[in-house]
């Protein structure tokens, strides 16, 4: 509960709002930064590695070009007729001595041109010139001899281990020797691979960048991992991890293309960028690897700083909002305590002196005015309440009086043995507007009335008392029912307020002649239930409700009563009662009830009708007085 209150707190809501707002703003900001800067970073990296690659290629090409230049000079010397073998070998020794890059020179003849065993390798070992004789069987199928010999063109070999002479891994520039258009052999100029490796291996770029060389058939020649050099090719690495992208990259490398490509596979390159550029002399390719994380390291650093900055801003704003909100809401909390005291009845509770903002001051002032008004209101309310209690007491007295005006239920009212009577009046409020009454007018006439004064409350009740009293008085003058009704109408028109009207059904039973004369002034119909269970309904009214039109002519009706006839009189509280579906019971409903009655005296009839009415209404509260009056006539014992 406490945490929920805190969640709804002002500070909490403002901080949450700021949080989402800042997340949105900084996400957009970081996204834009990443988008804009990643391209710049890529371009910078490409620029850096391409520069490095060009410089490295230039160095390697320089070393290879030196060998090519030497070869041209020596071939020129070889083709001249001025030098014999020894003189030529001396010059070759001088070249090897003079040029560090030149490891050895081999002159190898094809078997058919090596009759005098002139094939030889010249190299230096421990500063001593050595001329090692070669046999064609040793070399005629080796790449360095066979490829230039068969192709009749100059070429560079892939690295190979010269086990027979220098005991070094070398790469060789091989030049076919022609005499009179016939290729008679190959001249080979070796340079140590380590010379190229010394150029490539130290290359470091950022944290994990490195360079590697790939031969013209994809073999990896130099790589920081020794186990890879000479064993793996770009294509074997691609095959091991089924990396088609790496295979395509390998093809581009051996085809002499230049590109900057990102690899994402599981190869030794992992997620990295590779820049590759060809060595035009020998169709090798130089690759420079730079890890993607290194490429975007600066960008990531920038994004991390931005994120941290965002977090710091958020925390700062949150703290400021929290303390400021706490400060601003302090008078509100005091104010709340005072309001609670006032709510519990302490109207003299002291309000906080003032807030620290105009709004709070205004609120305190308004509350002070309200407090004063409340005090006055409560004072008035107390007076009003006292008055109300007094009136209520009086109403209760009036109610008591009203109840006493309703005749008590006895089996034979006023000991009139021909008549049995039973009435029920359920007022909707403390005091009601319904009334019923019955009494003998003389020895042979029995008077009954059921009436409903429109409205509720004191005025209605007083009117009801007036009607009751008036009827008791006037019925002693032996008037007919229509005369009684007419007098009552005029009395109500003159004595009562204009807003009050009364519906009534008045009847007088002639006990000697078994006749009933009744008059209905806008009231609910009279039901006559015969002894055999059948019934009649007398719905016609003889006039409008009473108390509206003065000197109104009012008629009456006569009925012949049989023994056991039961008169059932109701007020509209019965017919207009509603159930949960807001359906009225109506006249038809009452008829249905009367049809199903199996009673033998007025009390049972009245109570059973009331029970049916309650069952119909179920839980729907009663909105009008309900009155039922049942009389039977000379019920056979």
């Amino acid at each position, binding site marked *: 509960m406490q945490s929920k209150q805190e969640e709804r707190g002002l500070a909490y809501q403002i901080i949450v709002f700021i949080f989402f707002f800042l997340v949105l703003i900084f996400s957009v900001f970081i996204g834009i930064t990443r988008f804009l800067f990643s391209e710049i970073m890529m371009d910078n990296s490409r620029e850096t590695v391409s520069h490095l690659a060009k410089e490295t290629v230039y160095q390697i090409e320089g070393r290879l070009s030196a060998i090519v230049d030497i070869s041209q000079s020596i071939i020129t010397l070889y083709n001249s007729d001025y030098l014999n073998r020894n003189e030529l070998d001396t010059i070759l020794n001088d070249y090897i001595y003079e040029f560090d890059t030149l490891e050895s020179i081999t002159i190898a003849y094809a078997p058919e041109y090596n009759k005098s065993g002139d094939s030889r390798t010249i190299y230096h070992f421990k500063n001593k010139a050595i001329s090692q004789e070669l*046999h064609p*069987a*040793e070399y*005629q*199928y*080796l*790449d360095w001899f*066979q*490829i230039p010999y*068969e*192709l009749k063109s100059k*070429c560079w070999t*892939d690295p190979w*281990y010269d086990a027979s002479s220098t005991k070094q891994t070398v790469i060789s520039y091989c030049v076919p020797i022609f005499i009179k258009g016939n290729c008679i052999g190959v001249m080979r100029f070796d340079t140590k691979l380590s010379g190229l490796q010394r150029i490539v291996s130290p290359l470091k770029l950022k944290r994990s960048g490195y360079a590697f060389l790939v031969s*013209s*058939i*994809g*073999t990896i020649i130099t790589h920081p991992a020794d*186990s890879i050099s*000479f*064993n*793996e*090719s*770009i*294509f*074997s690495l691609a*095959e*091991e991890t089924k990396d088609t992208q790496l*295979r395509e990259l*390998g*093809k581009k490398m*051996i085809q002499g293309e230049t590109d900057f490509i990102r690899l994402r596979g599981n190869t030794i390159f992992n997620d990295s960028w590779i820049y590759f550029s060809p060595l035009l002399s020998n169709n090798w390719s130089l690759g420079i690897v730079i890890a993607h994380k290194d490429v975007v390291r600066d960008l990531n650093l920038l994004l991390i700083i931005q994120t941290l900055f965002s977090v710091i801003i958020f925390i700062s704003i949150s703290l400021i909002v929290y303390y400021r909100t706490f400060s601003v809401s302090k008078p509100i909390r005091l104010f709340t305590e005072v309001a609670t005291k006032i709510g519990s009845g302490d109207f003299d509770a002291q309000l906080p002196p003032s807030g620290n903002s105009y709004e709070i001051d205004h609120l305190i002032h308004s509350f002070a005015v309200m407090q004063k008004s409340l005090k006055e209101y409560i004072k008035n309310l107390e007076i009003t309440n006292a008055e109300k209690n007094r009136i209520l007491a009086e109403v209760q007295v009036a109610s008591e009086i009203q109840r006493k005006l309703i005749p008590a239920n006895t089996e034979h009212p006023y000991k009139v043995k021909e008549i049995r009577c039973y009435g029920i009046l359920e007022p909707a409020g403390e005091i009601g507007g319904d009334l019923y009454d019955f009494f003998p007018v003389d020895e042979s006439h029995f008077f009954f009335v059921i009436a409903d004064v429109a409205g509720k409350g004191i005025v209605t009740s007083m009117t009801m008392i007036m009607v009751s009293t008036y009827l008791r008085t006037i019925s002693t003058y032996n008037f007919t029912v229509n005369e009684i009704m007419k007098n009552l109408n005029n009395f109500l028109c003159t004595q009562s307020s204009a807003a009050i009207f009364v519906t009534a059904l008045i009847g007088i039973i002639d006990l000697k002649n078994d006749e009933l004369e009744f008059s209905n002034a806008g009231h609910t119909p009279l039901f006559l239930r015969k002894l055999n269970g059948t019934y009649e309904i007398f719905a016609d009214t003889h006039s409008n409700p009473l108390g509206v039109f003065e000197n109104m002519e009012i008629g009456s009706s006569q009925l012949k009563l049989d023994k056991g006839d039961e008169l059932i009189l109701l007020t509209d509280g019965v017919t207009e009662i509603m159930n949960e579906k807001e359906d009225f019971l109506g006249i038809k409903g009452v008829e249905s009830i009367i049809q199903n009655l199996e009673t033998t005296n007025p009390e049972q009839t009245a109570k059973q009708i009331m029970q049916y009415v309650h069952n119909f209404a179920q839980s729907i509260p009663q909105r009008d007085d309900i009155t039922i009056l049942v009389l039977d006539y000379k019920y056979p014992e």
Partner: protein
Amino acid sequence: MNNKRETLALLLLLLSIFLLTGCKKSDKQNGAITQSNMEQSPYSTGLFTIRYLPVWTHQAEFAGVYMAQKKGFYNDKGLNVLIQTGGPHYPPYDNLQDGHSDIVQMSLLTAIKRDSEKDNLVNLAQLMQRTYLMLVGKKSRGINSIADFNGKRIGLWKTDDRLLSLIFLQQHKLNMDIVDLDTSINLFLKDGIDIMNVMRYNEYHQLQQAGIDIEDLFTVSFADIGLNVADNGLYTTREFYEKHSKHCRDFVDATIEGWLYAINNQEETISTVLEIMHKHHLPANRPHQKWMLNELSQDFMVDSSQIGVLQKSQFEEAKRLLTEQNMPITSQTYNSFYPYAK
């Protein structure tokens, strides 16, 4: 200091050669084997020593022998097997006849042809029941059918392994300029030749590892065109076989056991092969050796009673092909050539 160490190492090496070869003349140029390039079992005391010469340099082609040695299958049978270094410079037949090797591995065609010289070869086991030999040509060089071979340059191994290719050329009456090859595929890659012979398990895959896609090659697989001659088998001389028949049988059984182990434990086997290749300074990578072992495994995915068996039909087919091309053949009968025939 370094010079002193090198001198000492050289002296020790010479001493070892002297002791282990029984002062035999070292003649490397003629393809003889020296102790320095042998794979030795660590448990050799009291065991019968057999010198085994593979037909090529160390690779997964001989995986069964490596694993039989590593797992002690030879030792279990009382054998101490020295695995010699093979290759085009160490022709198996010559080394066997010269007494440098006791058991060698070579193709059936080579054996039947070369046996015409002494009629003393004994086939101990026919390990490869089919040929993996192929011819490949680059489509980019205009090779799209066998007819396109005419007038082109073809590279064939300088060893007897070229026999089947020669039979193919003669059968199809192809007039081609033949260039002798050693072990390299570079002349083909550099377009020095238009077509070359390759083993499906070796050079064919090496070409792929040099960036050539299979679909860029026109291939002729001899096994698919009626030239399916059984390839490598284990051979010894009749003298050695008759003198050490039990050891020969044990060698064959242990070798086949080694092959079955290699096929069922390929990753371990490839690691062992790579280890041996690196030890001999041979370029090697795992995908290639894996490809090779996988290809060769097919010969052992048959009924166990057929593993290592030389069928008479294979023997006769090889003789027929050689005879048709007027090449010499052995005078031995099938039962004499293959003493384990049932």
